[in-house]
């Protein structure tokens, strides 16, 4: 391992800057080479190897380490934001030299209240364990984590939708529109058709998939047939679908609830709602299992099937795929069909979950599709990565709501978006994290090769 000293401090004389530049360039070359020279030799014992691997992973910043540090940094930056947007604390800091303890304790109190509420809302709350010992409900212990899974369900599914399109080289900003497509079909099947319990659930889920898949397929076919750019088409289809939803919700023979002037659909049948896992709703339900199954399905599709291989080849290099005899156009149409279907499944999870689920309204779609982009990016467009990212964001969402309720002056739940954005930003820029934590430079661990430019 070459221990290059950092270049000497630049001298004040501007005439010698050239040599300083040389020195830093040399240092950079040496550090990029160091990982190879730092590999454990073949003679070392297995145990030693494992130890070295772990130490290396930490000092060089493996993807997992970078992600953890990124989460930490995001929480630190957000804590600063919480503190410096509170006028009372700012006043205390203004009087820092009169009463330093006051400023520090107020700062600490503000951050610790917010983040402990965030944690207790998302993972578990120690008080519920104490209650359980005194005869309280045991299910309450699992309530926060169940809520996290509940919040994560649609995020995982829209994340998978964006991720699978990324793998085929397409940028799907239209998961929201596909969500609406799925939501309309799932909701209609939910209230207009009456079927026995198990079958009704299945019919609605399939309906949601099909509804989203149609919207996604339109994008893929237009791209394949005419070369219309998928970014424009997905953005435009989002607005088309929002307006179509509003229109149908305002039409008595469309999706509107009878004798209702608001834009609300009828509640779906009880037979069509997902059974949940104990405790008061909203709770994790079989929607979460569907999301996991979808992740497994996407993982199988991408890594084990011919179609998935074609997707990945088209994503990596469409020209090579074409000269290898694959139909790039067919892959585009198919991958958008699947992506749309996954976004439609997210809609079915929202429409049928959270029993009794709220009926479909004109803003049920929220920002699930756009959050899906962040989830897919953080999950590096890998199916199981998307599941983990979805769980993390679900936890932040669940905890953020609890935090807003538990703090005074209120810490708005919008901070969750800031934390999410910062996490992805830091994960995407490993050199920054390395610089902050003085990690050694290493092989690429960023989010490279996930997204592509306009020219594909």
């Amino acid at each position, binding site marked *: 391992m070459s221990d290059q000293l950092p270049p000497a401090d630049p001298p004040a004389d501007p005439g010698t800057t050239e040599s300083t530049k040389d020195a830093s360039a040399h240092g950079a070359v040496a550090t990029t080479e160091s990982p190879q020279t730092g590999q454990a030799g073949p003679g070392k014992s297995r145990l030693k190897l494992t130890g070295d691997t772990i130490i290396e992973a930490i000092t060089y910043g493996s993807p997992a380490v970078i992600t953890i540090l990124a989460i930490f940094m995001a929480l630190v930056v957000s804590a600063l934001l919480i503190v410096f947007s509170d006028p009372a604390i700012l006043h205390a800091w203004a009087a820092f030299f009169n009463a330093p303890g006051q400023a520090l304790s107020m700062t600490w109190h503000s951050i610790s209240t917010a983040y402990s509420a965030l944690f207790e809302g998302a993972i578990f709350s120690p008080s519920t364990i104490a209650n359980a010992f005194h005869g309280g409900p045991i299910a309450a212990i699992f309530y926060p984590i169940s809520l996290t899974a509940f919040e994560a369900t649609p995020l995982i599914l829209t994340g998978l939708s964006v991720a699978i399109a990324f793998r085929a080289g397409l940028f799907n900003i239209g998961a929201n529109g596909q969500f609406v497509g799925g939501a309309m079909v799932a909701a209609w099947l939910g209230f207009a058709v009456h079927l026995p319990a198990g079958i009704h659930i299945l019919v609605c889920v399939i309906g949601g998939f099909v509804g989203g898949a149609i919207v996604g397929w339109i994008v893929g076919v237009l791209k394949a047939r005419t070369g219309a750019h998928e970014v424009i088409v997905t953005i435009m289809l989002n607005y088309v679908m929002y307006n179509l939803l509003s229109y149908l919700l305002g039409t008595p023979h469309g999706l509107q609830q009878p004798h209702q002037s608001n834009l609300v659909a009828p509640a779906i049948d009880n037979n069509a709602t997902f059974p949940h896992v104990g405790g008061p709703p909203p709770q994790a339900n079989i929607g979460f299992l569907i999301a996991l199954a979808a992740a497994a399905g996407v993982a199988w599709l991408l890594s084990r099937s011919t179609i998935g291989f074609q997707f990945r080849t088209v994503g990596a290099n469409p020209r090579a795929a074409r000269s290898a005899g694959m139909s790039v156009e067919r892959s585009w149409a198919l991958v958008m069909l699947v992506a749309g279907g996954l976004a439609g499944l997210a809609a079915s999870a929202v429409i049928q979950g959270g029993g009794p689920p709220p009926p479909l309204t004109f803003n049920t779609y929220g920002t699930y599709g756009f959050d899906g982009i962040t989830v897919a990016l953080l999950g590096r467009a890998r199916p199981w990565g998307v599941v983990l990212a979805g769980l993390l964001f679900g936890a932040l969402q669940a905890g953020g709501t609890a935090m807003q309720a538990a703090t005074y002056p209120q810490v708005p739940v919008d901070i969750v*978006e800031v934390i999410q954005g910062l996490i992805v930003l830091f994960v*995407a820029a490993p050199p920054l994290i390395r610089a902050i934590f003085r990690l050694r430079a290493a092989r690429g661990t960023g989010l490279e090769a996930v997204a592509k430019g306009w020219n594909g």
Partner: protein
Amino acid sequence: MTTVTATIRLRATESRRELAAGTFILLGAIDALIFGLFSHPGNATFEFSISGSGVQIPAVQVPAAAVCYAVGAISVAVGIWRAIVEPSRIVKRVAIGVVLVCFLIALLCWADAGDSTAVNLVNLMQQSFAQSIPLVLGALCGCMCERSGVINIAIEGQLLTGAFTGAIVASGAGSLVLGLVSGSLAAGLLGLMLAVFAITFLVDQIILGVVLNVLALGLTGFLYDRLMQPNPDLNSGNTFSAIKIPGLGDIPIIGPIFFDSTIFLYITYALIIVIQIGLFRTRWGLRVRAVGEHPTAADTVGIKVLWTRYRNVVLGGMVAGIGGAYLTIGSVGYFNKDISSGYGFIALAAMIFGRWTPLGSVAASLLFGFSAQLAVVLSSLNVPLSSNILLMTPYLATIIAVAGLVGKVRAPAADGKPYVKA
């Protein structure tokens, strides 16, 4: 190989000619057969001046159905002509314009036939221009960034940042001009973040744009709840008032549309001209485009690639910031969560639709602004169509245009690719 490419290109022109001609004839048929046949009996009335201002022009009454048949016939004729002749580029564009205007006349005649309310065309145009300002500026920001080779999906975030900062500074400092400047600077700061991460840290630019949008949405939402909600003084709702340009503003029809608006419209004019001429007629623009198409070549001849990109991304951000400030201190005054509501994404689409040229982006942005306003006007008339269906049309029209008429677009060759010196 060359012959194959040539054949493909020829075939593409052929199919495009058929498609264009078919679309023209179809629109003509809609003009005559749908709008003409199904219009209420009676006249359509059009007004050309805003009440109580300058010279008044008498309103015009036309027999609705007859006009529909006439413009339909014109469109069909243009379509047939287009199928036979392969005209030059400019003539093609004029043909598209003629058919669209015909369609519009037929639509308005059909909507207004027999209705007592008149359609005020001047008001319609004036409002469309106003609606288009954030779109135009956002799309110009996109051109600035992407011509130098940096993809900017964060236009939405930059608009939002500009809107928030504009409102809070204008209210807090009591100066609208200060609000405008700081809105622009704040969005420029977001541009600087984009530049630092994209150019220096080589972060994927699409990821970056998405992240910056999320950050801007979260941050403005958080600060809105945290600062503006408890202190209404920080969101006081002041707006710029309209400035009428002496002389020009008094010209009938043209005056109220182009020369009687807030400072934002005039800034927009200036920026359109500066950026269009700057990108295509100056040394600066040549260098920017060289950096966006082939950075290695640009570097070889001594152009500072990274510096050019930094400068363009930050300046682009500042342009978008002005558009953002318009959303608050230029129109409604008050800031609200997610006030940009997707304008940035439409601006992005407008830029791609306009093929990465400032004038093309402006035309596409105007199309969106105009159709949105048209939907508002039509929903005030007695039209048997839901406003949602009307609001849907600009987006559907874009999809059809992108799929049928524009086809495959080509971004600057190095767009989105970070430049690392070999």
